């Protein structure tokens, strides 16, 4: 008996189309999730960098002030809840103005590069107070967010 029909073809076309729609929707949802995770990680990385800057504003011993142009000393290194880490170095520019360079980093996961934020602040160093700590004084144009 000969049986001719197109039912299997129609079913295959419908199933393929539905599959493509489902795959694209899944892909869009995945992209959204990644973008969200990246945005949250960047906020946390910025928080880590800001925390390192805030920590440095309390001051540091005079012995940590670099003497030679380009010389850097690490002033702050900290870890925050959520796997974010922050650090801050003091760099000599060769004059009375110094550079505080804060960095924050937070892993994103899922094979994506970590979120990273770098903030630089130009400061002049006030003389040591009664507690012998050097305190930074911000420059009127000192704050700059650099691309990582």
């Amino acid at each position, binding site marked *: 008996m000969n049986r001719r029909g197109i039912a299997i073809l129609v079913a295959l076309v419908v199933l393929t189309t539905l599959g493509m729609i489902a795959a694209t929707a899944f892909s869009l949802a995945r992209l959204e999730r990644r973008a969200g995770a990246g945005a949250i990680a960047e906020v946390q990385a910025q928080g880590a960098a800001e925390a390192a800057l805030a920590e440095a504003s309390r001051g540091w011993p005079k012995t940590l002030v670099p003497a030679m142009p380009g010389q850097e000393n690490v002033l702050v290194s900290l870890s925050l809840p959520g796997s974010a880490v922050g650090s801050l170095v003091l760099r000599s520019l060769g004059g009375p*103005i110094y550079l505080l360079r804060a960095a924050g980093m937070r892993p994103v996961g899922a094979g994506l590069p970590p979120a990273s934020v770098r903030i630089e602040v130009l400061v002049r160093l006030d003389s040591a107070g009664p507690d012998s700590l050097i305190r930074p004084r911000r420059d009127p144009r000192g704050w700059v967010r650099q691309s990582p």
Partner: protein
Amino acid sequence: MSLTRRGISIVELVVALVLTTLLAALCWSILAAGAFRLRDRSERMSLEHSLRVVSAAVRAALEPVGQDSSAGNDLVVALPDRFVTRTTRASGALCDATSTAFTARATPGWWSALRNPVPGRDSLLVERLSPPSSWEVIPLSGVPYPGACPDGSPGLVLPVIADSAALAGVGAGAPLRVFEEMELRLYASSGAMWVGLRSLATGEAIQPLAGPFATGGLQLQYRSLGGPPTADPAEVASVLLRVTGLTERAGGVGISRGPVARPDSAVMLVIRRNSP
């Protein structure tokens, strides 16, 4: 005797046709709903991306603006739907300064640049070493070229024309910024509103950054310290941004069928980090 029956009856044909029609209608509705949701989701993602791009651009432009009595304010124009800022394109520190050229240290860790400085488009901001802190604006007069610092390390020579007053207090160790004046505003094009950027120094046409947006979709409220609104750029301590975007169809471009107006908005407070 055998009886042979070939073909189908009218009843069987009608039943088959009805079943096929029902099945086709079901498949069509499922496919159409899926396609609509997919397209709608894609457009909403695009809209959210536009809101994020504009918010990030406004924040990146306004957050670092500074000011002092010598070089003036980096926030040049502050209006409810547009602003002009001195936007940093490169930063570093000088190792030498003469009346015809500034030499910046060019080794890694010293020089940070989004692009190479361009004469006629970029200017320099350089800080005096002697207190109190003050900066000087000096135009870039020629194409930068590789050179050397007095200590022999690699440098980038930035041609300038500076008189003795501009050079006072400027020397090795002075911070340097390369900037251009950029305008960000809402503008109309192709029947829709877009947020765009342009360099004022070159007089170039505005280039789209993101869109489409609603009419009046970029609202900037400038606030002084403590929160009261101000129209004076010198008093601005923070900026409240409200941006209202539209999906592409509602904005007047793209596929015109389907639901209209799908607006969404974002609100952000940008704190001026180098506040007056």
